[in-house]
């Protein structure tokens, strides 16, 4: 399979495949596919709850958010859905009609991931020591969360130094000089100072003055937000080379006495960096960014809230059980949607670069997905939850493993979430250039 261009789902065969796959997930794998004209509700193939659930899955997989509305007063059939999807495609504005927009033939259609790196705080502490610091029973983090050690920033290390180190390494790995960067997109859930992290990195790396510096939020979802922003900059022709940096230093904020160990003890410090380039045809030895999905599941908003209180302290509302349940449910759902949208079966995915709230949940997620736990790099187990850098470190580790196993590079799935509960997912497919193997 060629890497997916960053365009809405417009191919008729692809749309049909998605609709059929979504139906099977709702009605059961063994349910026979109905004829196009069959009314799914009248024939009892789906009840009204399942019908709407099915439509929502198709909406998400096809990126057509008003599919349900388009089907009002139409039969509840495959034919209606396919027709509505076709209409949705027809009403999208043509690129030529947008002011200042380039035509499709002029715009690069692909964003390639050219290089990556990650670093963690240089002070590695066994989890038993963390238990002791937070006044918890010795062994609690290891036995309850599966954490073996936590990486903490040493004196002199902070978001800027860790982020800059990661970015230098990412640049070096691709032979790219800082002056080639058109944008630095930074994300951090712990850096709240001004000048912002992106502008400090801009100054630290001495990139061109005309290189943009942009900070995006989303906490643990920050990397995916940044990737989507970078992809938009690249495929719109606004940039040729974009650097993404994540950097999180929790150990200065989530300190013993300020927050409970069951919460603060989970977090470590780290950073990651990625270099993305525009490409006209996706033919490359590098990985190509696929599509992204995002959303916000507000029903879980109360599971975690963090805010400053008026005395300079930190107010943390953390319902661990509810958050764990929400994280697993949502990431499983996001990855299932990515599977449908990409057409890449989870069984052929080389690695899952996801957020890792703690190792126990990673194990559970792998089990729920029915994939090997080894496809999830063990970031949280050895370094703790690194915030937005967890997903970044996991992605870097997955890319590095793919490089070592150059005979069979496989697609990579991404998924993450943050308080709110904001969530997102996407995929990377191996490019079709020399040295790469196309995904099947």
């Amino acid at each position, binding site marked *: 399979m060629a890497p997916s261009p960053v365009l809405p789902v417009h191919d008729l065969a692809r749309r049909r495949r998605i609709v059929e796959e979504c139906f099977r997930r709702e009605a059961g794998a063994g349910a026979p596919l109905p004829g196009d004209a069959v009314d799914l509700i009248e024939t009892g193939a789906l009840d009204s709850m399942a019908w*709407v659930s099915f439509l929502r899955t198709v909406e998400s997989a096809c990126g057509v958010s008003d599919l*349900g*509305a388009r*089907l009002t007063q*139409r039969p509840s059939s495959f034919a209606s859905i396919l027709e509505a999807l076709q209409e949705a495609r027809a009403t999208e504005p043509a690129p030529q009609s947008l002011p200042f927009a380039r035509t499709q033939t002029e715009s690069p259609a692909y964003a390639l991931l050219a290089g990556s790196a990650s670093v963690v705080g240089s002070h590695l502490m066994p989890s038993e020591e963390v238990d002791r610091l937070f006044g918890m029973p010795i062994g609690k983090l290891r036995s309850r969360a599966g954490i073996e050690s936590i990486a903490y920033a040493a004196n002199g290390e902070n978001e800027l130094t860790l982020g800059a180190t990661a970015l230098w390494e990412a640049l070096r790995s691709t032979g790219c000089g800082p002056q080639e960067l058109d944008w630095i997109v930074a994300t951090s859930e712990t850096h709240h100072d001004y000048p912002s992290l992106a502008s400090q990195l801009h100054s630290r790396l001495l990139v061109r003055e005309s290189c943009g510096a942009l900070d995006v939020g989303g906490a643990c979802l920050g990397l995916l937000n940044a990737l989507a922003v970078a992809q938009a900059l690249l495929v719109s022709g606004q940039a040729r080379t974009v650097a993404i940096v994540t950097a999180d230093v929790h150990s200065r904020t989530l300190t013993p006495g300020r927050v409970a160990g069951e919460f603060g003890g989970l977090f470590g410090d780290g950073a990651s960096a990625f270099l993305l380039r525009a490409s006209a045809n996706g033919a490359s030895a590098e990985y190509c960014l696929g599509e992204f999905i995002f959303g916000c599941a507000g029903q879980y908003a109360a599971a975690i809230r963090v805010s400053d209180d008026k005395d300079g302290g930190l107010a943390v509302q953390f319902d661990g059980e509810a958050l764990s*349940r929400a994280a697993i449910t949502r990431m499983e759902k996001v990855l299932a949607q990515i599977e449908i949208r990409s057409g890449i079966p989870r069984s052929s995915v080389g690695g899952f670069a996801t957020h890792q709230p703690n190792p126990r949940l990673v194990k559970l997620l792998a089990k729920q997905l029915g994939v090997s736990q080894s496809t999830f790099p063990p970031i949280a187990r050895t370094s703790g939850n690194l915030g937005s850098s967890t997903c970044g470190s996991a992605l870097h580790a997955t890319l590095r493993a793919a490089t070592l196993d150059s005979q069979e590079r496989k697609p990579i799935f991404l998924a993450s979430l943050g308080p709110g509960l904001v969530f997102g997912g996407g995929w990377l497919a191996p490019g079709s250039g020399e040295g790469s193997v196309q995904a099947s």
Partner: protein
Amino acid sequence: MTKLLITEITRMGPAFCAIGLQRENAKIQSIRPVSPRANGWLEFPHLRGDILECNLAPFSGSKPHIEDRVATQGFKKSSQLSESETVAFLRKAESAQSMNQLFGCAIHENKNGSGLYTLPHEATRSICGCETQNLRLEMCGNELRATLALPSGEVLRDLPVVDRDWHDFTDAALAPQRGANVAARLERFLNSQFQYKTLSCPHHYVRLGITRPYHDLCWLMLDTLFPLPKPDWLEEF
């Protein structure tokens, strides 16, 4: 003889379900009168706000539908309250600020598509009222769905709307004799005037319920939305 203030009339398929409030000493609690033969009624010729006199017998309904009572004879209307008076009583009955308070248990999301559910053995009741920070109705493939934000900030998405009057209203709005583009006109109404009319109403209130166990899950639904729709709103779009 029990006096029941009718607060909910829901429609699911061909059957209606009614729920009312009963005062027991100082406590106001929800009661669901069911016919001796079925959980629903094929006809229910009464309105929200009606006070009905009836004979109710305990019913060994399965948990979490602990509000069920068998109506052993017909209903006799004794008086009627206005919408605002009805809501004043609803606010004194079961109510919640957050998701976990609604049915006394965790609420789960459908892993495949949309919808929220509770586990039957976890839920401690099947009906609850709440204020909302925001509320949106939409048509999705001919089905009316609600999304709302609770006072806690938690969002409940894609709840089936089973309120009889709101169903009748959207059916009337989509009637062919109303002319062209009725679906688009209804969508525009739901995205604009609807929000103003409901959220600015001083007696805006919502009651949520859960279905009877279906494949071992009880799905959340929006049973009642006050204010009820007014026929003259149809003239506005």
